[in-house]
C-alpha cells in the first residue's frame, strides 16, 4: 500500500513523457506540412509584455522577465526546428536604461545569468549548433555582462547551422550613427594612405588616383559597417503584447519586413502565433518575390 503513491507518481511521470512525445511528434509533422511552402530565412522578435504579465498574474516584477525567458527558449526551439536560420531578439534597448535603476539592475543580473547559461553543455546553443552574436553598443553594458557576452560570441564563433542575434544596449538609430562614424574613420584612413602614396608617385598618375579616390568617397557603404550586416534582412518581425510600433528596432533592415503584432504578452506567446505569422508570410511571398525581381 505504501508503494501506491510512488507508483502513481511513476505512472504520472510516464504519462507526461508520453504526452510530450506525442506533442513533439504532432508538432514536427505540422512543421513538415508548413515547410512545403516558403519558410522565412530570418525572424525578429520584440519581446514586449513581461512586466504586464507579472502584474496580470500577481507576481513580483522580475518573474515576468523569467517567464519571458522560458517563452523565448520555446520560440527558438520552434524556429530552429522549422529550419529558420536567423533569429534576432530585442533583449534590451538603450532607451530601457532610463527605467528605474533597480529594474535595470535586476534585468542586467538576469541577463548575466542567462548569458552564462548559454555556455553550458545542455543549453540550446549546443543542441542546435547556434552561433550567437551580441549586437548593440556593448560599451554601455557593465563589465561582467560585456565579458560574458564576448565569451559566448568567441565560444560559438565556429557554429554555422543557425544564428541567434541578441540586440542588447541597442537602438537602430545608434547602430546607424556608429556605422557612419566608422565610415568617417575609414575614409580619413584611406585619404591618409593615398596621400602617403602620392608623395612618391608621378604627377601623371596622380590625376587618375585622385579621381579614383573621389569615386571611393562617393561609394561610402554604410551597410557594410552596420552591426546587423552579419544577417540578411528579417522576413518577419513579431512584436508581442499588441503594441504596433518599432521602438527603434532594426529600422534600416525592416523596410520590406512583414510586421505582426499579436495581442498576447511575451510570456504567453506560443506556437500558434508563430505559425500564423509564417502562414501570412507564405501568402504574401510570391507577390514580394515578383516585386523584388522588378527592381
Amino acid at each position: 500500500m505504501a508503494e501506491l503513491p510512488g507508483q502513481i507518481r511513476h505512472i504520472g511521470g510516464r504519462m507526461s513523457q508520453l504526452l510530450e512525445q506525442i506533442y513533439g511528434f504532432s508538432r514536427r509533422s505540422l512543421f513538415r506540412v508548413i515547410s512545403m511552402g516558403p519558410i522565412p530565412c530570418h525572424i525578429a522578435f520584440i519581446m514586449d509584455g513581461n512586466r504586464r504579465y507579472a502584474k496580470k498574474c500577481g507576481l513580483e516584477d522580475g518573474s515576468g522577465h523569467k517567464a519571458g525567458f522560458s517563452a523565448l527558449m520555446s520560440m527558438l526551439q520552434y524556429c530552429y526546428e522549422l529550419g529558420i536560420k536567423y533569429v534576432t531578439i530585442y533583449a534590451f534597448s538603450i532607451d530601457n536604461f532610463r527605467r528605474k535603476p533597480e529594474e535595470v539592475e535586476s534585468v542586467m543580473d538576469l541577463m548575466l545569468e542567462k548569458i552564462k547559461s548559454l555556455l553550458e553543455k545542455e543549453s540550446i546553443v549546443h543542441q542546435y549548433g547556434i552561433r550567437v552574436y551580441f549586437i548593440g553598443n556593448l560599451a554601455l553594458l557593465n563589465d561582467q555582462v560585456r565579458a560574458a557576452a564576448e565569451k559566448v560570441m568567441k565560444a560559438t564563433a565556429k557554429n554555422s547551422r543557425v544564428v541567434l542575434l541578441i540586440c542588447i544596449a541597442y537602438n537602430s538609430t545608434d547602430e546607424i550613427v556608429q556605422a557612419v562614424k566608422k565610415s568617417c574613420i575609414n575614409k580619413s584612413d584611406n585619404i591618409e594612405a593615398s596621400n602617403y602614396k602620392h608623395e612618391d608617385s608621378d604627377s601623371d598618375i596622380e590625376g587618375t588616383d585622385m579621381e579614383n579616390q573621389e569615386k571611393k568617397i562617393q561609394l561610402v557603404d554604410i551597410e557594410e559597417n552596420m552591426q546587423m550586416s552579419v544577417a540578411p534582412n528579417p522576413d518577419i518581425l513579431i512584436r508581442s503584447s499588441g503594441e504596433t510600433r518599432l521602438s527603434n528596432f532594426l529600422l534600416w533592415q525592416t523596410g520590406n519586413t512583414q510586421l505582426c503584432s499579436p495581442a498576447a504578452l511575451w510570456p504567453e506567446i506560443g506556437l500558434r502565433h508563430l505559425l500564423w505569422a509564417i502562414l501570412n508570410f507564405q501568402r504574401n511571398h510570391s507577390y514580394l518575390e515578383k516585386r523584388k525581381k522588378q527592381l
Partner: protein
Amino acid sequence: MPRHVAFILDGNRRWAKRAGLTTSQGHEAGAKRLIDIAELCFELGVHTVSAFAFSTENWGRDKIEIDNLMSLIQHYRNKSNIKFFHRSEVRVSVIGNKTKIPESLLKEIHEIEEATKGYKNKHLIMAVDYSGKFDIMHACKSLVKKSEKGLIREEDVDEALIERELLTNCSDFPSPDLMIRTSGEQRISNFFLWQLAYTELFFSPVFWPDFDKDKLLEALASYQSRERRFGCRV
C-alpha cells in the same frame, strides 16, 4: 491629437479592379482622397500630414502607369487644389530623390513649394520618388563628406546630426506620431525608416480610395488609446 500623421496610400489599383475601373481612375480617386483626408486632418488640429505618393521602387511598374502617376502629380497643381492650399494656408513640400522626375514636373513642384513656403501652421509633405534607405544613405554620405572636409569631427556625429540631414528636415515635426497604411498590408515598404522609430502604426484593411472620415477617426481613436512609453515605464 498627433502632430504629424503619415499615410501609405495603398490599394488604388485593387480598388479600381474591384469597381471595374482603370488603374489610372484608381489613382485619380486616390489623389482626391488624399486632399480630402489632409483637409480633415488639418481641421482636427494635426500640423503635418505626409503621404507616400510614389516610391523609388515604383519605377519598376509599367510605363503607362508611371506616366499616369507623373501626370497626376503634375495636376496636383490644379485650380481647386491651389485654392485649397492658399485658403487653408497649407505649406506644400515634395521630398524624394527627384533625379528621374521629368523636368516639367520638377518645375511645377518648385513653383508650388515657393508659393506656399510662408505658411507655418499646416504642412503637407508629399514623398515622391522617395525611399527611406535612400534618405538615410544620403544623410550619412553628406556627413561623411563634411567630416572629410573637416567641417565636423567624427566624434560629433550623433542622432541629432543625422536627423538634420534627412529630407524631412523641411518639417518642424520630422517624426510622425501615427502612420496609417491602408489595404491591409502590414509592411513599411521602405517609406520613412529612421523617422518611424517611435511612431504608432495603424494598419487599415480598406483600400485607400475608401479611407474616409470614419476610418480616419477610427485610426485616431486607436492612437489616443495607446500608451506611448518610448522604452521607459510611464
